[in-house]
């Protein structure tokens, strides 16, 4: 019996290695390709058969990129926008989700459906009206123009609703009997139980805000207001056929988000020990 269990365990570890290794390999290839292309010379990029490992490394692509790309300014803009966006959206989404999942009120289902329906119209067709609205409010070239949409993020609301619905009502009833207000319940009961999901959502929403393209493209047009993807898009235009520089740019735009993720991951771990419904 004991032996069997042990072999089961090694077997499952083996499976983990094989599967994770296999899928990991598939994931890594494109990333590896990106990094290696960013470090290749123009001629090496177009060699056939392809060079898995370049014979000579160059930082020229990065030099070319940095010569045109005002990194400090652009990164600061992106950081301001993405951090405010994520923080606001986490607050508003948890509040809304709590109302939908745990406060019985007339029209709750219908309103959630209306919210959800707003995901079904492509942004391209509301771009001009939305621009008009924001522009006439004097929001062009302000951080506010790209932060305000964080008030309404259906994806986050829906995600948290789905999660909060799985939290047993007993917790809430017990708290209400103790005379707790809804606000206290959200803060003291629901949120601690939702930390893993919220941490995941934080990463997702940060990344969405960081990578957002079309909206900042029309709202933040002054060079000193541009975010990373917008500025990178312009630089790519200047190096249209230079894949090395484009890959260098892509690589550099990913780095800050990965760092944020690493920071949040430790948070998620805490969330797991704090939250989760343990017995």
């Amino acid at each position, binding site marked *: 019996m004991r032996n069997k269990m042990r072999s089961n365990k090694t077997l499952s570890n083996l499976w983990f290695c094989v599967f994770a290794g296999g899928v990991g390999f598939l994931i890594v290839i494109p990333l590896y390709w990106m990094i290696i292309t960013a470090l290749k010379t123009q001629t090496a990029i177009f060699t056939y058969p392809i060079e898995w490992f370049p014979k000579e490394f160059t930082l020229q692509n990065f030099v070319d990129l940095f010569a045109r790309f005002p990194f400090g300014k652009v990164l600061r803009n992106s950081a301001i926008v993405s951090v405010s966006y994520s923080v606001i959206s986490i607050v*508003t989404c948890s509040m809304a989700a709590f109302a939908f999942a745990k406060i019985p009120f007339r029209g709750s289902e219908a309103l959630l459906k209306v919210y959800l329906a707003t995901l079904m119209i492509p942004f391209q067709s509301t771009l001009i009206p939305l621009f008009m609205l924001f522009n006439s409010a004097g929001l062009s070239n302000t951080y506010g123009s790209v932060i305000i949409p964080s008030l*309404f993020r259906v994806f986050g609301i829906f995600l948290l609703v789905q999660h909060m619905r799985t939290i047993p009502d007993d917790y809430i009833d017990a708290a209400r009997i103790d005379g707790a207000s809804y606000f206290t319940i959200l803060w003291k009961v629901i949120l601690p139980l939702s930390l893993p999901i919220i941490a995941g959502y934080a990463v997702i929403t940060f990344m969405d805000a960081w990578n957002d393209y079309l909206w900042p493209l029309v709202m933040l047009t002054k060079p000193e207001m541009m975010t990373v993807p917008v500025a990178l898009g312009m630089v790519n235009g200047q190096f249209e056929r230079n894949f090395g520089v484009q890959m260098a740019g892509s690589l550099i735009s990913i780095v800050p988000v990965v760092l944020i993720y690493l920071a949040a991951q430790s948070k998620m771990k805490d969330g797991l020990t704090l939250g989760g419904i343990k017995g």
Partner: protein
Amino acid sequence: MRKNRNNHALAASAFLAPSMVGFLLIAAIPFALSFAISFTSWSGIKGLEIFSSSFWQSNFIGLENYSKILKSKEFWVSLLHVGQYMVLYIPLMLVSSLGIAVLLNKPRKGTAFFRLLFYIPVLTSWVAGAIIWKWVLDPQYGILNDILARVGIAGPAWLQDPKWAMFGIVLASVWKDMGFYGLIFLGGLKNINPIYYEAAHLDGAGRFQSFLKITLPMLTPMVFFVLVISLINSFMLFPQVMIMTEAGPAGATQVIVERIYKYGFSYYKMGYASALSWLLFVIVFLFTFLQQKLQKKWVNYDA
């Protein structure tokens, strides 16, 4: 009792207020305008004068945009392409993201590393991701066909061959999204009370059985969420197509949102583009409505 209910409504509206402001500002008003525009011949390159009745009168063309779209072959072909994408993408994405979640749920050595690994594609913007994949899928200089050639398979010209182009788009999309949905499933898994597993173990259930009997049913709220969101997102398929294939080759990857963008911002027929959007809305809404109806049959909220 009645008073109690009012009380709830008041509390609910307090919690909903911020999102309501956002809803009005970035959804309700622009959507209403877009709906109105769909009945006009507005080009999009002349100022939109929402308060001028002569603007609306001179541009109003009734249902003409809608009837034109429904009669055009292009609309149905683009829908068909979206369908092809969905049929390939959703199952592939579901299986791989569930697999990832189950793998990463158990804390072992290397979990943190793999979690980051799976998540890096998610962190990548589509602008970067699509450029990378164009390279990976290159028939001659690409790494994928190089690998295939090593095991004796002559890979297709993924993005240049009309038969394979959509599949190439699907590959890139699954790569990009599986970590994302995997993370959501992982959040769901973390919420499952270990008591259930212990009970199942005592009953002599095997690993696979307890996955089927416990994990999957308990995960249904998240599966439902992922299905709804990924279906909507599939209908909204756009950036990868624009960057990787430019809707080609021979129109093989023309999809609805790509058409909307082209009509609105390249052919200067914003009225037509808006009508396309609202037809798309109706279709997506019907699908989601169906999902909501079926939800009661399989989604389980009792943790």
